[in-house]
C-alpha cells in the first residue's frame, strides 16, 4: 500500500470540504508547480518537510555492464531531496518490521 494522489484529494475533501474537482486540481497543481520550479532550475524549500535541490553532474566515463564497452555518461542535471529536521525526526521513530 502506498499513498497516492487520489487519497490526498480524498483527504482534502474530508478535512477541508473541497469538492472533488477542486481537490483533484489542487493535488495535481501542487506537484506540477514543484516540477515547474525544478524544471526552471529553482530549488524548492518546503519548511518542515524538506528541500528539493538541483545538482549538475559532470560528464564521466561509464561502461555498458553487459558488453563492457566504454561509453561516456553525459553531463546531466538531477533532483535530490533533503528531508527537513522535523520530517527526519518523525520518520526515525518508525520501528519498521523490515
Amino acid at each position, binding site marked *: 500500500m*502506498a499513498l497516492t494522489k487520489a487519497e*490526498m484529494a480524498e483527504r482534502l475533501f474530508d478535512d477541508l470540504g473541497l469538492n472533488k474537482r477542486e481537490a483533484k486540481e489542487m493535488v495535481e*497543481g*501542487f506537484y506540477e508547480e514543484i516540477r515547474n520550479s525544478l524544471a*526552471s532550475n529553482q530549488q524548492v*524549500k518546503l519548511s*518542515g518537510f524538506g528541500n528539493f535541490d538541483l545538482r549538475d553532474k559532470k560528464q564521466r566515463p561509464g561502461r555498458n555492464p553487459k558488453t563492457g564497452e566504454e561509453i561516456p555518461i553525459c553531463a546531466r*542535471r538531477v533532483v535530490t531531496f533533503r528531508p527537513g529536521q522535523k520530517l527526519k525526526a518523525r*520518520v526515525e521513530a518508525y520501528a519498521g518490521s523490515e
Partner: protein
Amino acid sequence: MTKSELIERLAARQTQLSLKDVELVVKNLLEHMAQSLAQGERIEIRGFGSFSLHYRAPRVGRNPKTGQSVKLEGKYVPHFKPGKELRDRVNESITAD
C-alpha cells in the same frame, strides 16, 4: 520557491479558493505525506516520483567535540526517487541555460 510562493502560485491557477484556503490545502498535503512516511508507508506520485524509507544500520559514532564514541541505534531516513517526467524535464533544462 518557498512554501508561501508555492501557495501563491497554486492560488493563481484557479478562482474558487482563497489564498487562505490554498494555504490550508498545502499544509494538509504536506502533513498527509509526512504522516504516511512516519507510519512507514510509501508515497507514489506518477510523473513526480516516490518517497520511501531507507534503513540505516546501527553504528558507533563519535562526538566530534569530545572524541568520545557513542552507540547509534539503527534508524529510518526518508528517501526520494524522482519519476521519469520530473527527471527528464529537469535534465532538459541543463541545455536551456
